């Protein structure tokens, strides 16, 4: 039976100061307005979710973990799920249908605990049309089987939303089924290779131990044939993971790393056949299968690391899926791509303006924080131009589209970037080394072969041709990079730093210039350091102000609530938010107002009104809240560390009121304020033209261009479902560890170099004997896996050690 427990410390109605926590999501409740069955909720949304669940006997949800819900506060106006019934959209989500049963797949970013799994998999009790639901927790996906005669896809979407799991709707968010079967194939290939490797090894051992001589010739040939049989599927099936890319590379005239590998596999196999059938000696199937097995394993390991990190470079993911178009006086839902010049669109509270448009009807308060970083809405009158990317706050607008979606300001920004793509992968240090190494080995073995042939010793010549390839196969080299980077990436993702790929790690080591966005990156967007001027507030007055401020989502309101801290929750009546002015409401029959000087009726100082809110209680001005943007905790220490060897810049969309505050760490000429996204992009480009390797840290869409232009773009994010155009996604709390990241990247590089040296030592020693024809291929075959295993354990061990050392503090915290 579920354990319902009282979430607040103290009984309601008592005079003690207590904090009510929402039964659903665990957030603190502003007041006791939302109450049901002795339980309090922070907002109407959370209460609704609870109502639905309790009506359907699903309260076990709350028993599995405490406050499992996701807050419903501040959720945008009711999403239009009818778009899901547009056939072209529908087929993106319904991937399979059989009779009356259809299977739909959604991505639910809000899914976060075992209660979520439980609730979502019991969705069938909420609606008879839903037959079954299956959750894939690591991918945050749900597959729902539903009866199309009873329920529409839009209803399924709305139901998910109603219980607090808003589906992530995107046109290009099609479930990746081909990827799935690809992964299965890789696993099977590894399985087969591993199986063959183990058994070939077992069969080869007697020959190794007996010095290539087993007394029973029948047994000997049986072992050899059996090895061949085992190696065959590896040679034909598992190894085509190397043949195919090698062939593709060769066709394009590019010698990639798979070429020497494929060559080594084929040559070893051919040499083994020759050894068994012509020379009647032992083959090298164990080393061939081992090579394939370890290489496949390394690649799988690397892929696995990237799988959890899905990056999205499509601008459309920020835009609504469908918009409301007015056609002949009626409102229609149309996909975004169908919007054309001259269309009349409805933009509701909280919705994005999808394209540059003219305001035709309604009063616009446009929040351009996505575009410029400014958090305060801009007032727009009828006839004014609205740029794409702004979010309407307040009443519904009617707008006339001026440009098609693809031509908008934001899109232009993105398209700019796409053409100037960064150089990728090909000229990476590792690839180059691998390539030349492979080439060198090929040349050396050919030369040795020629040398011994001229001497007239065919047997030695053959050995000298093959053994270097087996001994010096670049696999130890390749593995060192794969395993070092793979392990590093895995470790970083575990502590909240997600890298797009291993090359990012390599680029991080070259960074000499670090550029920060201000709001939301260096400073906290919501909890700026706040202080109050005026007669100090009585506790009761604080309660009144906090009650009102809690109603609003404005950053300043949030900062006020945070400043006040613990308070008695009180109910607010007649609450009203006047955009661009302030908020007002009745608390305990006292009229409270927070906002601009004009709104309050206060005398305005000569100083600019930015960063301050006036408060009046019962018509009397009580004082002013000042908001200073302050560094996030831990960042000052970071600045101290960074400024020794890096150039630091600020590119901010905000005004320059904080210039002096940042002057401690940033040179005057390195601070740029009132930067549009395009300015940021240009500034980054300018730095790069002066041969700086630039790392950009930003938090939002407004930085997307700059993030992508920079050599290493780091998106600093608070929410997990933010997927910007960047190379790294970093949890906000990890920002103070930026210097540790630099050092870790460098350590990774050192480890790779060290293992290079080790494997080159192996190789040269091996080669030295091999070229003389003195090293028997059997011995080479033993050396090969041995060197591989030692390299792999060296690299993984060293990276883990480095990570532990550099990120030690975090380990303690977790």
């Amino acid at each position, binding site marked *: 039976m579920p354990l319902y427990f009282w979430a607040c410390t103290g009984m309601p109605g008592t005079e003690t100061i207590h904090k009510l926590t929402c039964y659903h999501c665990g957030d603190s409740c502003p007041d006791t307005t939302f109450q049901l069955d002795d339980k309090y909720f922070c907002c109407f949304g959370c209460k609704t979710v609870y109502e639905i669940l309790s009506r359907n006997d699903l309260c076990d949800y709350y028993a599995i973990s405490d406050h499992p819900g996701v807050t419903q506060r501040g959720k945008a106006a009711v999403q239009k799920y009818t778009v899901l019934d547009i056939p072209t959209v529908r087929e993106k989500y319904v991937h399979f249908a059989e009779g009356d049963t259809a299977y739909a797949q959604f991505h639910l970013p809000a899914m976060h605990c*075992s209660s979520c*799994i439980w609730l979502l*998999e019991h969705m069938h009790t909420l609606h008879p049309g839903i*037959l079954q639901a*299956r959750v894939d*927790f690591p991918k945050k996906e749900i597959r729902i*089987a539903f009866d199309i005669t009873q329920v529409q896809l839009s209803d399924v979407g709305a139901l998910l939303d109603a219980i607090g799991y808003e589906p992530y709707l995107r046109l290009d968010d099609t479930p990746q089924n081909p990827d*799935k079967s690809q992964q299965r194939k890789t696993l099977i290939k590894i399985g087969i290779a591993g199986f063959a490797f183990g*058994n070939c090894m077992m069969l080869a051992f007697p020959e190794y131990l007996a010095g290539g001589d087993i007394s*029973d010739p029948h047994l000997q040939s049986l072992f050899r044939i059996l090895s061949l049989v085992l190696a065959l599927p590896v040679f034909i099936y598992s190894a085509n993971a190397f043949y195919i890319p090698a062939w593709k590379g060769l066709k394009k005239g590019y010698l990639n790393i798979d070429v020497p590998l494929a060559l080594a596999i084929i040559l070893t196999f051919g040499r083994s056949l020759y050894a068994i059938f012509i020379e009647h000696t032992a083959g090298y199937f164990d080393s061939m299968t081992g090579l394939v097995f370890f290489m496949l394993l390394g690649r799988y390991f690397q892929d696995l690391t990237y799988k959890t990190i899905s990056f999205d470079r499509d601008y459309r993911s920020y835009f609504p899926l469908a918009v409301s178009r007015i056609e002949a006086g009626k409102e229609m839902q149309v996909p975004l791509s169908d919007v054309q010049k001259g269309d009349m669109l409805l933009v509701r509270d909280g919705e994005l303006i999808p394209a540059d448009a003219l305001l035709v009807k309604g009063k616009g308060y446009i929040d351009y924080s996505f575009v410029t970083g400014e958090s305060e809405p801009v007032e727009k009158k009828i006839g004014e131009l609205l740029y794409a990317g702004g979010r309407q706050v307040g009443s519904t607008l009617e707008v006339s589209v001026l440009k098609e979606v693809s031509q908008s300001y934001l899109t232009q920004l993105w398209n700019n970037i796409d053409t100037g793509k960064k150089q990728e992968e090909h000229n990476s240090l590792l690839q180059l080394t691998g390539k030349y190494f492979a080439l060198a080995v090929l040349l050396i073995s050919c030369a040795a072969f020629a040398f011994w042939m001229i001497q007239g010793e065919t047997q030695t010549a053959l050995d000298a041709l093959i053994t270097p390839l087996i001994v010096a196969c670049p696999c130890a080299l390749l593995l060192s990079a794969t395993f070092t980077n793979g392990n590093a990436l895995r470790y970083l993702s575990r502590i909240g730093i997600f890298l797009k790929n291993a090359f990012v790690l390599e680029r991080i080591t070259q960074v000499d210039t670090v550029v920060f966005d201000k709001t939301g990156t260096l400073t906290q967007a919501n909890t700026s350091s706040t202080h109050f001027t005026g007669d100090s507030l009585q506790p009761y007055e604080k309660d009144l102000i906090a009650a009102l401020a809690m109603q609003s989502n404005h950053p300043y309101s949030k900062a006020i609530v945070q400043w006040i801290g613990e308070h008695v929750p009180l109910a607010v009546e007649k609450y009203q938010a006047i955009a661009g002015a302030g908020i007002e409401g009745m608390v305990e029959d006292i009229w409270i107002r927070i906002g601009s000087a004009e709104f309050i009726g206060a005398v305005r100082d000569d100083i600019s009104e930015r960063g301050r809110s006036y408060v009046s209680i019962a018509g009397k001005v009580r004082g002013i809240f000042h908001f200073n943007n302050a560094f996030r905790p831990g960042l000052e220490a970071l600045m101290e560390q960074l400024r020794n060897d890096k150039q630091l810049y600020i590119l901010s969309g905000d005004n320059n009121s904080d210039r002096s505050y940042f002057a401690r760490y940033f040179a005057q000429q390195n601070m740029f304020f009132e930067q549009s996204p395009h300015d940021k992009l240009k500034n980054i480009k300018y730095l790069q033209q002066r041969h700086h390797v630039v790392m950009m840290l930003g938090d939002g869409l407004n930085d997307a261009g700059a993030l992508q232009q920079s050599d290493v773009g780091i998106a600093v994010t608070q929410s997990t479902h933010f997927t910007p155009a960047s190379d790294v996604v970093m949890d906000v709390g990890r920002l103070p560890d930026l210097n540790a990241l630099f050092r870790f990247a460098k350590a990774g590089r050192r480890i790779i170099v060290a293992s290079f040296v080790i494997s080159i030592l192996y190789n040269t020693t091996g080669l030295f004997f091999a070229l003389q024809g003195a090293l028997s291929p059997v011995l080479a075959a033993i050396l090969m896996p041995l060197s591989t295993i030692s390299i792999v354990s060296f690299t993984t061990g060293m990276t883990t050690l480095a990570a532990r050392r550099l990120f030690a503090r975090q380990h303690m915290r977790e």
Partner: protein
Amino acid sequence: MSVIILLIGASVLVAGGFLFAFIWSVRSGQYEDDYTPSVRMLFDDEKADTSKKSTFKTTKK
């Protein structure tokens, strides 16, 4: 010596059995989500569940 042949045969057979078990488990999608089932098995079964037949058989291919 024939006993060694027998032993080898047996060991390869056993190993092959495991290989096929592995391939089967990969094919049936057991490696795709290695977290959710571990939670799912801890939930109490409901009576209502049985009325609706399990529609999620493993998808082939």
